[in-house]
């Protein structure tokens, strides 16, 4: 029996990710409807919505600090948000985001959990996503101002999403949620004594 794997996939860890994923999915159902309305009419504003897909996996990774948290969370988010216009294909969209963010932590062998890695991961992902959106919307034929707006808004919204995810993770950690689930961090105490909350 692969004991180490057993330990990393505890039911508590699975259901914690499932809860975060369910919350993300609930957020993404209306987001999908708004995106479906914005994409054909105001594609520039549509590009500002990217951050909504990033909050969930960042939050899960930052809070749980275990391999697979982002993928698992986004799998659940995809299943929940398949109640939106695009149906089951949202599973794939969400898995793609989760896997892309997870990749940065795979590369560092799940040893680095600093904020810069989260920002770096989202930066790389949103750059790739912006490129794909460029191809899809044929943005190369658009006015330079519009191109700059689309790139700027996408990147900015992804970084804001990361910031929000990290903020939520910090607040939840301070509230004592998921305590003992994440491996203890070296150097910093898990609960700061000076916390007013």
């Amino acid at each position, binding site marked *: 029996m692969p004991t180490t794997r057993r330990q990393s996939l505890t039911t508590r860890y699975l259901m914690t990710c499932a809860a975060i994923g*369910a919350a993300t999915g609930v957020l993404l159902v209306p987001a999908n409807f708004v995106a479906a309305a914005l994409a054909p009419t105001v594609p520039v504003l549509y590009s500002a919505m990217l951050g909504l897909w990033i909050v969930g996996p960042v939050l899960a990774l930052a809070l749980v600090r275990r391999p697979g948290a982002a993928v698992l969370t986004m*799998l659940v988010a995809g299943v929940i948000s398949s109640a939106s216009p695009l149906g*089951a294909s949202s599973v794939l969209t969400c898995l793609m985001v989760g896997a892309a963010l997870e990749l940065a932590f795979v590369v560092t062998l799940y040893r680095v959990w600093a904020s810069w890695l989260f920002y770096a991961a989202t930066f790389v992902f949103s750059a790739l996503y912006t490129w794909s959106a460029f191809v899809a919307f044929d943005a190369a034929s658009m006015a330079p101002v519009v191109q700059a707006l689309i790139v700027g808004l996408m990147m900015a919204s992804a970084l804001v999403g990361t910031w929000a995810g990290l903020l939520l993770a910090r607040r939840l950690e301070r509230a004592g949620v998921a305590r003992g689930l994440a491996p203890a961090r070296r150097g910093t105490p898990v609960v700061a004594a000076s916390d007013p909350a």
Partner: protein
Amino acid sequence: MSAGSLAGGPALPGADTADGDARLGRFAGPAWDLRTYDPLVTAFGPLPVVVWVFTTRDLLTPALVGLAALLVILLLVRPPARVVGVLLLGLPVLAALMTVSFGVLTDPRAVDGTVLLATVGPFELWSGALATGLATSLRTCALLLLVLVGGLSTTGQDVVRAMVQQLRVPYRVGYAALAALRFVPRFGHELEVIRAAHRVRGVDHGRGPLAGARRRLGYAVPLLAGGIRHGERVSLAMEARGFGAHATRTERVVVPFRVRDVAFLLATWGGAAAIALVVVAALTG
């Protein structure tokens, strides 16, 4: 749909009736119903076509692909009349909207040689820009229809079941995702409790859009904390009932992979290849 049509269908491959009809549920239907196909095949099978359509720039290819996908949806998926109405009425409106909105965004310098159609405030609409916009809008509609083939014929839950049974995703992961569906109504209840608690304590974030955002964030943390704690309690209950004790488990709904799934995959990819290599070449001559 019914078991009767399955028994009466002579065209079905023998594998369909081999084992456990009762456990096949709605997968035990005739081959003309795309809902009886493997969810992975219908949801992810058209993906190579999606990637290919992404890279096209002409008008004909996305129009043909979109038409083919629409035919598959109308003939094999047969969504409810309301959805058909939205598709048939909404798509042309969507295409027209996108043509104009993407046309407005097109770089005017690239289409200098064409006719200026209209000027609204700072925006100018050139006929060449409209052609670029039409290409983008046709492409987006084709992509939407391709995705809808899977989206309308299967559900997220069945995709998860198929992942567990065919992609060998650990069943503990799959069932965690299925259990999470029950968290959604729970969140609604929890939100009401948190709102009431904030009101009782007189939590005030002031007025205006910034205060609204702060209020949302104020809901987000307790909501997530409550959700995660609920998840932990559920995990205890699951473990107490022996969840994950064995390496394998039984399934209430069996997702089959049959000849029709292979046929669908081959037809999808073959159809796309035929459009790319034969039809477009023949029409543009």
